[in-house]
């Protein structure tokens, strides 16, 4: 069930340069949350006409909390970062289809590929996959060392490969180059990716010729989050109609979606 409920900010912390984590306490359909699902957060200022779509990075149905991690990309997110503990914000959710957890079992080799603000949904996914007994490898890229976050979470779930564009930490280069540099290549059952378009295209190029199942979580500029405004569309090829990222995604089969 979809609700718009008030949540209270119980923690707000800067994790890295311009990257914040906010933990919110409130009621909604926790049972309906899968890794990859998102919420639409209403900013407490009437000048903002659009809610912000934010992926759920962690979710605790017992404590009734959700964790969102976001980067300051504009005035709206800056406003969110300045909201103090105790502030009430309205949350529409849970939204989106989430990552497929089909074909995952004890010992299944899975690869998570992420960049920048694409990491939050992968953080929840990594934890769930580890609980299922999968062998989780994660490859993540950042612009520079001061922007790194999520290391502890990913290391807890398995192997972490880290790249920075400027080489200030880990491999120097992007995630695609990092993966290409690996001498031993595992045979992954599933690859899950979230991040900039270039990263998702790289994952397609690399894994479409293989037997690995590809799940890509897309970002889309959206107004409603529920399939009403049809702003956040993506093509899945000739003979098909546009799909809405918000309701038919944000996770798509990497072999179908055209970026």
């Amino acid at each position: 069930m979809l609700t718009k409920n008030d949540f209270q900010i119980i923690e707000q912390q800067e994790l890295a340069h311009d990257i914040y984590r906010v933990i919110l306490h409130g009621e909604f359909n926790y049972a309906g949350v899968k890794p990859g699902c998102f919420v639409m957060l209403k900013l407490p200022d009437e000048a903002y006409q659009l809610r912000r779509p934010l992926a759920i990075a962690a979710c605790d149905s017992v404590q009734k909390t959700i964790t969102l991690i976001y980067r300051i990309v504009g005035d709206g997110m800056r406003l969110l970062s300045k909201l103090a503990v105790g502030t009430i914000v309205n949350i529409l959710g849970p939204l989106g289809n989430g990552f497929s957890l089909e074909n995952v079992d004890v010992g299944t080799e899975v690869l998570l590929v992420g960049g920048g603000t694409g990491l939050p949904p992968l953080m929840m996914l990594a934890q769930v996959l580890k609980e299922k007994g999968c062998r989780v490898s994660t490859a993540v890229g950042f612009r520079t060392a001061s922007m790194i976050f999520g290391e502890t979470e990913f290391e807890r779930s398995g192997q972490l490969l880290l790249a920075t564009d400027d080489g200030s930490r880990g491999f120097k280069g992007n995630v695609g180059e990092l993966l290409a540099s690996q001498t031993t290549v595992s045979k992954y059952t599933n690859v899950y990716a979230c991040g900039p378009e270039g990263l998702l295209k790289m994952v397609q190029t690399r894994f479409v010729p293989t037997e690995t199942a590809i799940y890509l979580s897309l970002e889309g500029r959206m107004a409603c989050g529920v399939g009403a405004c049809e702003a956040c569309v993506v093509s899945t090829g000739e003979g098909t109609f546009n799909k809405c990222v918000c309701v038919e995604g944000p996770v798509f089969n990497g072999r179908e979606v055209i970026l």
Partner: protein
Amino acid sequence: MRTDERLAIELPGLKLKNPVMPASGCFGFGDNRYAEMFDLNELGAIIIKAATLKPRIGNPVPRIAETKSGVLNAVGLQNPGVDVILKEKLPVLHKKYPELPIIANVAGATQAEYVEVAKRLSESGMVSALELNISCPNVHEGGMLFGTDPVIAQRLTQAVKEVSRVPVYVKLSPNVTDIVAIAQAVAAGGADGLSMINTLLGMRINLKTRSPILGNKTGGLSGPGIKPIAVRMIYQVSRAVDLPIIAMGGIETADDVLEMYMAGASAVAIGTAHFNNPTACPDLIRELPQKMDELKIDSLSELITEVRGAQ
């Protein structure tokens, strides 16, 4: 929900238990997840997404950009085409909510296309009225072109009226020098009502890429920032043309609804407000009676008579 008789309105083709309806393009065909959050039977009516003769893929993304107190959109009339709408979308909506009056929004690139779509939708038996979209700013053929020239607007209205079996409301564009002239022209063409205003043509630029944010470059501005323009235009048109007006343009609160009535409106459509508040329509329906008590308004139909009768 209790039906408050003070909210009931009768318009050509429409017997509404209240005057509140989602605006076209902001609520799909009632087939989105907003419908999980309240019973669509509570609505006065619904204006469904624009229909064109052939499926339209719409504009490239990004299709949406925010601005202070407003939203720019350039979706570009994405829709599966009138055949699919008649076969798949309308029957589902009509069957699920048999009492909900449906207004179908009609768009096209040519007059012949408008006429064909209007004819098919009006013959379906599932729609109570048509809303003729001569004001979409986001398509390169047709759309707003039909709504900015009085002669073309009148001719199109007349042609659609000749084939339509249900009343025709013409949706006007604010992107004109004299909206009264267009309103008079479509009235002369036989329109049964007006709906106004569509979005205002606007643009935003991304400072990093130094190019327009929207894939279509320009888009239509909606939201509370445009409300004073809507109020002004409804005020002007209602004094010049004797047709009922469905008002839209930044309505968020019961105060906004009553302001539109005092400008000359007979009903209201809600668009952008849904994005922050998915239950904007039922909330308004609940808030209206209380606001009317405060302002000593006995009923909306009396308010219309008072405002329009005094003109």
